């Protein structure tokens, strides 16, 4: 009735052929590496849930590469970025890291946007620096990474502190926290609660939500028990607006406080009316930073629009500090162990002391020259001052904003430890 499994040889060969063809791509791409070029990697979500972020961050990376090359390039070499798709998926992210490390053989990677901890076991043993533009959770600080993992964005612990203290400062005594059920929401909720209670406030209730649901009334009703003064809503605009509308229409909350994820014109427009007038929030960035202003202008010139999502400036800074560190390391160190050479110089070029370098082609030219002369520099990035601490974290300023005349306006920026 059934013959046993039998497979003709030629078909097996056909399968092998396809596999070899795929590998041929790999060889060609590796052979394309020219002598006076230096390649860095970028591991970004080009597909999947975070694809809109990935696209915008990629523009930031490309802009930085362009500026660095216009300034002459590190050690006179041409900087090039290869992109690998993390697909917003841990398995693909790991595979992308393997590609960058073992096929493209890059010394440094800008990325991943989330889950640095998946890439670290691949990159750290191979001495590859990773600089995440956006991975905010607190645990990134303590990863076992041999100091090869950096980020150009502030830890959630810092924003949580500012958010918690802001809530107290605004006169709220009792608050409820509703947060999106992901590492960002959970981490921020925890540190916000900690600092709000340290200031003297009391968190009456804390609940998580999953995005994309039609109704959040159940959580809201639960949180409204004990009549808290305000709802601290940690999430993203899409479900966030649904939550605000339902909280307002049910008369459960009329005071809200928002973190960076909700720092979007979209929430004001979708909720409508003057319901959100005077509400406060926090987010990354400095209110008046010449680097950021210059970055915005250059971005607009290159792509014709403002950055559509956050974190493109953080990626820009990541590329720039890598290039500056290459220049500082010098050709010999870069040849011996490029990843380690870059790692060892990152703090030198990004932290004080030294001449302040802003984000512009002229300043990069100046920086390359100063470094060649053995002088110290301190890069002041588009996303903040970019000073790496001993864990590879940066302390970037946190912006406090409020909603005034249906616009998000900066109030002041705080530098928290």
């Amino acid at each position, binding site marked *: *009735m059934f013959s046993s499994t*039998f497979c003709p040889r030629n078909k097996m060969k056909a399968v092998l052929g396809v596999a070899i063809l795929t590998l041929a791509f790999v060889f060609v*791409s590796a052979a394309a590496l020219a002598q006076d070029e230096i390649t860095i990697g970028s591991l970004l979500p080009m597909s999947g849930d975070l694809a809109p972020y990935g696209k915008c961050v990629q523009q930031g990376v490309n802009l930085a590469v362009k500026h660095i090359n216009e300034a002459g390039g590190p050690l006179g070499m041409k900087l090039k970025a290869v992109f690998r798709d993390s697909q917003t998926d841990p398995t693909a992210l790991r595979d992308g890291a*393997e590609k960058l490390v073992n096929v493209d053989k890059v010394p440094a990677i800008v990325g991943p946007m989330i889950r640095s901890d998946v890439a670290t076991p691949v990159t750290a043993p191979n001495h590859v620096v990773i600089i995440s533009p956006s991975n905010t959770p607190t645990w990134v600080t303590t990863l076992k990474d041999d100091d090869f993992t950096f980020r150009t964005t502030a830890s959630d612990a810092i924003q949580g502190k500012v958010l918690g203290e802001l809530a107290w400062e605004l006169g709220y005594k009792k608050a409820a926290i509703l947060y999106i059920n992901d590492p960002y929401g959970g981490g921020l909720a925890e540190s916000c609660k900690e600092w709000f209670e340290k200031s003297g406030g009391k968190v009456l209730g804390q609940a998580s939500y*999953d995005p994309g649901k039609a109704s959040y009334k159940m959580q809201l009703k639960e949180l409204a028990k004990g009549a808290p003064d305000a709802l601290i809503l940690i999430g993203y605009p899409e479900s966030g607006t649904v939550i605000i509308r339902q909280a307002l229409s049910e008369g459960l909350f009329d005071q809200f406080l928002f973190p960076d994820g909700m720092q979007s014109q979209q929430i004001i427009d979708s909720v409508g009316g003057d319901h959100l007038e005077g509400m406060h929030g926090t987010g990354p960035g400095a209110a008046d930073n010449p680097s950021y202003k210059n970055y915005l202008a250059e971005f607009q010139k290159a792509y014709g629009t403002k950055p559509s999502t956050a974190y493109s400036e953080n990626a820009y800074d990541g590329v720039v500090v890598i290039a500056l560190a290459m220049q500082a390391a010098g050709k010999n160190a870069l040849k011996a162990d490029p990843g380690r050479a870059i790692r060892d110089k990152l703090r030198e070029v990004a932290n004080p002391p030294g001449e302040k370098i802003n984000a512009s082609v002229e300043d990069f030219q100046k920086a390359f020259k100063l470094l060649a002369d053995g002088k110290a520099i301190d890069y002041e990035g588009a996303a903040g001052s970019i000073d790496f601490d001993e864990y590879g974290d940066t302390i970037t300023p946190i912006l406090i904003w409020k909603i005034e005349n249906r616009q998000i306006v900066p109030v002041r920026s705080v530098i928290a430890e």
Partner: protein
Amino acid sequence: MISYFVSFLIIGSIYAIAALALNLQWGFTGLMNFGIGAFYMLGAYTSAILTSGPTTEHIGGFGLPVVAGFIGAALVSGGVAFLIGFPALRLRGGTFAIALLAIHETLLLVVRNESWLTNGVWGIRGIPRPFFEVVNPKHYGYIYLIIVGGLLLLIYLAIAKAVRSPWGRILRGIGEDEDLTSMSGKNCWSYKMQSFIFGSMIMGIAGAAYVHYTGFVSPQVFNPLMSTFIVWLMVMVGGTGNNRGVIAGAFLVWAIWVGSDFLTDFVPAAVATRIGFIRMLFVGIILGITVLTRPQGILSGEKRN
């Protein structure tokens, strides 16, 4: 270069193990399991919790040897399959598939929210990797390739032998025509249950193999696309009911899935941003071509009358 190929083969082998399990359930017994991710996840988390070291973040810190993790993964996946089997196996075909899909989503919600058990959305890090201390971490892939390759071979041989045995013939009979097999005096329900449990245990083992390679697990790993549908794709491209075929299918689909990324280097930057979508197009085209020209899969050596 070689290191990357090794890492490719490891993930490919893990998927091949899951594909073999699905082939047993669907290819031979006709069980349309759309909940592969559920058993893959159960295995992964069971092994992760059993073997990881002391922690305050979630239950665990048992620090058991990795082998115990694999056994636990198989037992828990099999046990849950047994429990689910009672209601689910009353359903046939499409309804069975929908039920399993729903069970996957339910279990995923449990894993995301029960932080005391699974550390929720943060996931579990620092899961032990067998023989990790033996070599330079740079070259660890080679060791693990031997482990997972051996596992794949073992499971392949076991399934190949099982489906050729009288037991396997009954499964095939159920797959071809359940009523007819029932009329021959076989207890179809019992055999379906056995096939379901056996296949699910293997999926659990695939999950354990995943976590002990990456040293990491989070609910994101088990989204339906990357844990269920990709395995279906592998089985369909490779050849339903053909064990060697589905192994080849697993490697081929994974090669296209991750290999298409290299296309980015050859296209202009404006197109490069869309490469993710182009990959999906490729995968769709390949599936389309296979279904149209080789409905039996790329290795259609096996004759089924």
